[in-house]
């Protein structure tokens, strides 16, 4: 099958004005507990570095559509996800990991994401001076924490859906497909996942929200292997656009020469652990 994109469709649109590296999340970890700061002395930095890397690895498993970076990235990442080791109470303080996040420099709260209690006030054996032991304890706690369904749901609802995944899309007008530059093989997106494309149309100035689903693997060039969706629904301001007018009214604006900046996020991410393999004959494989 021959697909024409450039001729029959327009490639892309908006200038990447919003974010330097969409889809990337910088994972950081900070030891703020005075007991550990005093006890570990110079070892704090190592703990922070190692835990950040481990945390990024842990988060990659349930949410592979995001590029979780445990080490500092060259470009400014789209979002930051931070864990902080804090202490509360006396004389035996409770040691907890609390969570913070920001998108494009704007911090927001994640009230449903409960802190991890690393050492409660009834646990006295604590590695205040042992960086290796602390790192191990945190790793164990994180591994157990991330495996729980409630944590995964809270992370999805409160953070993952906030992360900008792309600030540009490719449009296949012939097939009326919207191609998100998100590597399908890495993202492992199941076909009942939902993406959201948002932009503000200049004239008349109105916020346009496109609901993109079902996602599938793009099996043709250009953008082979990316994530391809259809525009399932659209709203202009508060008004819904009829299905047969979506492409002409909502998507058309993105084909203009002065296309507005856009943002793609995921509304509902479901993972297909087997997604991504492309057969030599160009068909996608999904069990």
């Amino acid at each position, binding site marked *: 099958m021959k697909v024409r994109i450039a001729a029959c469709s327009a490639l892309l649109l908006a200038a990447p004005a919003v974010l330097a590296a969409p889809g990337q999340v910088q994972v950081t970890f900070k030891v703020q507990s005075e007991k550990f700061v005093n006890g570990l002395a110079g070892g704090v930095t190592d703990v922070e570095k190692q835990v950040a890397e481990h945390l990024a690895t842990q988060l990659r498993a349930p949410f592979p559509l995001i590029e979780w970076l445990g080490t500092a990235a060259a470009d400014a990442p789209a979002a930051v996800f931070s864990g902080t080791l804090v202490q509360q109470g006396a004389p035996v303080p409770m040691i907890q990991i609390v969570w913070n996040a920001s998108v494009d420099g704007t911090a927001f709260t994640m009230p449903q994401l409960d802190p991890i209690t690393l050492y409660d006030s009834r646990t006295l*054996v604590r590695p205040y001076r042992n960086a290796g032991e602390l790192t191990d304890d945190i790793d164990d706690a994180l591994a157990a924490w991330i495996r729980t369904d409630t944590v995964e749901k809270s992370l999805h609802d409160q953070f993952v859906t906030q992360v900008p995944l792309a600030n540009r899309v490719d449009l296949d007008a012939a097939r009326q497909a919207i191609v998100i530059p998100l590597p399908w093989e890495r993202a492992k997106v199941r076909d009942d996942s939902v993406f959201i494309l948002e932009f503000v149309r200049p004239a008349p100035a109105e916020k346009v929200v496109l609901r993109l689903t079902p996602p599938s693997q793009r099996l043709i060039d250009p953008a082979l292997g990316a994530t391809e969706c259809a525009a399932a629904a659209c709203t202009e301001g508060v008004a819904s656009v009829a299905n047969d007018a979506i492409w002409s009214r909502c998507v058309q604006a993105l084909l203009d020469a002065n296309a507005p900046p856009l943002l793609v996020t995921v509304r509902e991410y479901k993972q297909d652990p087997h997604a991504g393999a492309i057969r030599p004959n160009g068909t996608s494989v999904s069990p």
Partner: protein
Amino acid sequence: MRAVNDTSRGARDAAPAADAVSAGEKAEAASRWRYRLTLLLFAIFAAAVVLWFQRHVEPFVTETLIVGGTVSAWGLWKLIWSMYEDAGGDGRKDLTRRLLGGAGALPAVVFGLIIVALLHAGTSSVYLRYGGARPNEEEFRVQVMDGDHVFMGPYTLGPGTSIGGRPMFPRFRALNLSYQILDRPDFEPLALDLAPWSAHDLDVPGDFPRKRIHVLKFVPGAGLFSDLRKAGEGSGTRHYMEVRAQGKTALLDDLLQAVVVTGAIEANLPRPAALRRIGGLEKEITDYFKSQGIADLDAVVGGLLDADGQTLASAELKGGEEIDVEIGINGAPRQIVVTCRLKVPDSMDERHTFFLGPGERGCQ
């Protein structure tokens, strides 16, 4: 006449015979008395030998040796007696009389007595026996000092090894010995003179006077335990402990996650390795942390008991005395974490445990 003559001749003949009989009776009487004297001296000799053996040697040789030695001596005696009979010796009936009634018996017994007297005069012995211990007092190391020199020992005494010591011969000089129980400062040394003929047979620890030392055991409380450094941990803040009593200050500049023992001069404090054997300590610590609702109880109690304790020499404390304890973080300036005012209990129990830290009794 003839008859008269015969009679007078008979009388003349009878006189020497009577004299002879009289001399024989006297000799026999003397022999009997000599025999009795010899018997008496032999009895004294035998008693003296037994007394000497029992006093100085018996504790040194085992029962096996005594039984074996007796059997061997009996066999040897039978062998000698058999040879004696083969060589024309009489029956055994008169053996005692022949042995002790002979002319040479008395000097031999007297000679034996002199030897035994010399043995008594020149033999001294020191024996230490496990006895008089209180419950949980299982093992003691004891040594005997003569001035600055170790005279005997050290011996480790306990239920398994219950005796130490030996006899000494010849010794003709009196010694002023000092008996010491090592590693147990709660026992006074025992000073005793050892004459060349005397025997010391002491119960350990029963014969040693116990000291009245108020040993204080400081255990980090729940609010302090985690902050302290474990032995071997290199980084981070270090804590100190200051104990002020009787106008003197004792400083422990690296307070660890361990039991601290204080309340006496260094020599009178238990050695760190011996702390875990202090009776009742484990229960006290376990009960305390259990009452605090600590989740990792085994790790905390095990950590405290397995760690070598720390000793902090201080003034010798008395019952009812008040002391001040300050715990803080080393640095310039020091950062005080907690201060405690404690009263040494005036009780017969001379080992007192205090749990120190924020929120503990007497601490603020």
